[in-house]
């Protein structure tokens, strides 16, 4: 399958990428290409200009300082999964990155492309929301930072505008007593999330003092399970309290659950509490 013809431009620096993007209306940024190229081959996207940012050095690398992980937008899923710093400071992110698609997809696909594309079945948007990430963006008006809660605006729609480049993602490093995990029921062929759950808890003196639970695969944007979170705070995290919290997720999801040919909305909603329970149990077991 051939994409429509386009003009290919390769940016060497972030400044160059930004300038090219502003000079070429209708241009699309190309990172790992593992969402954009399939869309272009199906002609669901036909940009006239493609700006390859794949070799922009400023967008690479993972660093841990000042209590936060800073992750370049071009970091591949494989690099994330292999990073000891990510594994220690953001357990759920490490776990989720290691389960994106298959090894070849993880060798090319990037964290920046994953969140900028914002497929409802993608893993990383839910994880980064649960971990309270901040997204740093460069655009025509300069730089700005957006919290995860404001970043995902709708189905495949984010705070990254047409002329913007997502540069880095900042994730608060694991606090004392914190544990996080990601559990997913994956589509058997693509391995995208049919139901994915990211959970992060902080346990202090045997009691849960903070909890975040965010689901993907069910709704157009990552769904926060507020009643489930509230049910955990103030409790000791036992099989029973976790199961009780997981049972509340239906209320949080409401009637906006999406279904498709593989799994109906009813089925996804029925499966969700099981994966909430698994994710919270794993997060609780890692809290230290």
């Amino acid at each position, binding site marked *: 399958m051939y994409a429509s013809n386009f003009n290919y431009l*390769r940016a060497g620096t972030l400044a160059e990428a930004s300038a090219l993007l502003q000079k070429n209306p209708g241009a699309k940024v190309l990172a790992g290409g*593992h969402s954009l190229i399939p869309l272009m081959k199906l002609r669901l996207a036909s940009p006239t200009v493609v700006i390859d940012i794949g070799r922009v050095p400023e967008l690479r690398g993972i660093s841990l300082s000042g209590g936060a992980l800073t992750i370049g937008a071009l970091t591949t899923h494989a690099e994330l999964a292999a990073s000891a710093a990510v594994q220690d400071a953001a357990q759920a992110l490490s776990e989720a990155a290691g389960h994106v698609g298959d*090894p*070849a997809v993880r060798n*090319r696909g990037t964290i920046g492309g994953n969140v900028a594309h914002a497929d409802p079945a993608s893993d990383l948007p839910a994880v980064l929301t649960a971990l309270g990430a901040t997204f740093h963006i460069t655009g025509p008006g300069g730089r700005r930072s957006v919290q995860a809660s404001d970043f995902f605006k709708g189905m495949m729609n984010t705070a990254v505008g047409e002329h913007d480049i997502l540069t880095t993602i900042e994730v608060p490093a694991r606090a004392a007593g914190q544990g996080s995990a990601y559990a997913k029921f994956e589509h058997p062929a693509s391995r995208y999330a049919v139901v994915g759950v990211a959970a992060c808890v902080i346990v202090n003196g045997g009691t849960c003092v903070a909890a975040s639970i965010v689901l993907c695969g069910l709704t157009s944007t990552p769904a926060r399970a507020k009643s489930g979170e509230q049910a955990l705070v103030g409790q000791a995290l036992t099989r029973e309290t976790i199961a009780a919290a997981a049972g509340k997720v239906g209320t949080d999801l409401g009637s906006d659950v999406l279904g498709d040919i593989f799994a109906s909305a009813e089925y996804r909603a029925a499966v969700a509490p099981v994966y909430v329970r698994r994710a919270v149990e794993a997060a609780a077991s890692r809290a230290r």
Partner: protein
Amino acid sequence: MSQVAIIVNGKARKADVEPRMLLVHVLREQFNLTGTHLGCDTSQCGACTVLVDGRSAKSCTIFAVQADGSEVTTIEGLATDGQLHPLQKGFWDAHGLQCGYCTPGMIMSAVTLLRDTPDPTEAQIREGIAGNLCRCTGYQHIVDAIQLAAGRR
């Protein structure tokens, strides 16, 4: 048209390509390296897997222009001095193929697996080839072949 320069199996190659040309087509049609197969053409089956700068990648999901300046290894680049690569030998000896359509992609994925995990468990092997579909074997002999190759290295 754009000119791309790619080191393919250790040899510097050049081609004039439309930007929309996929790496798999350049390898097969311009460089006549037809060992890399096109299966699904939708990023799912892994028949088109090659190494780009040493790591497995689906060549149906890369524009050739993105590989400009990179090193690409295909199944044709694995044997040295007429000696099969341990994985090729393993697939031969353990009957890791029937029709052979998936085989080049399976082997290129296994090359990356064994580089990262020299002594893989069965579960790690299955995860390593999770992006490669086989319509014939039922996978068991493929897993055996990779295990055999890992043990012989």
